[in-house]
């Protein structure tokens, strides 16, 4: 399976990839993008099985990326990994079509719990 990790922080992308491995999902093909624009290009070229995206990013935010995908009728599984974890933000994510929102800072256990269902 292909997982696309989208975050403008290289360190955070590294932490997400490391946590994916620690949570038992290291056997998947993991690609990275530094913002929504780069992610959209990547997804148009080859739709992944799952997108894990930050919310706040330059050029195109995570929610803008999700809205662009749904406007193109691309229903790829999409989840946020973000500090934006208020009830209102979670509702906005759900309304836009996100499957889940993992709050930063995240734990291996959070990845295991959420992704076990999505990647099963």
């Amino acid at each position, binding site marked *: 399976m292909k997982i696309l990790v989208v975050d403008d922080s290289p*360190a955070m992308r590294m*932490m997400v990839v490391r946590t994916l491995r620690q949570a038992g999902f290291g056997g998947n093909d993991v690609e990275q993008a530094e913002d929504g624009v780069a992610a959209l290009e990547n997804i148009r070229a080859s739709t992944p099985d799952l997108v894990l995206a930050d919310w706040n990013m330059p050029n195109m935010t995570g929610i803008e990326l999700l809205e662009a995908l749904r406007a193109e009728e691309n229903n790829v599984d999409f989840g946020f990994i973000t500090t*934006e974890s208020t009830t209102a933000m979670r509702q906005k994510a759900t309304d836009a079509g996100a499957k889940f929102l993992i709050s930063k*800072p995240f734990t291996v256990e959070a990845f295991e719990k959420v992704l076990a269902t999505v990647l099963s």
Partner: protein
Amino acid sequence: MGTSYEHPNPASIADLFEIIFGENVGVSDGAAAADITDQHTATFLDPNDNLVAACTCDSAFVTYSGAALSMIPAEVANEMIEDGEITDEVKANFFEVMNICSKLLMSDASAHLRLEKVIAPGQLGDTLSAFEESGTALGFTVDIPRYGRGSLSFLINQP
């Protein structure tokens, strides 16, 4: 939803930092920075783009936390502190640390806030002048395992 923000304390800071830096992060109460002009200052905005909080950090905390986030060797971090030159990578990592620290100021009952920017030492100007009358300052010392000790202060602008 209320507008008051959480006041970080050693336990809440340690809980958060241990998730990103590993176990045994030491956090204790300390004096808030007396002179914040030489500090690295993160500013936080409420949903109406009002400046409501800031976090001022010394160069040691900036360097150690930024280095630890992507596991840059401690020796390299110490060289940066000695040379007074923090790399762009470490500065970018520190920005992410401050982004995560926004959670220390929020609860389900508080208004949302977001990290706006990090201001370099000497560039602060009168950015925080409004905090002088109604601000709360909370200082802490943080020991990051395998790296070292730095200090940070949260300034919260609310009655």
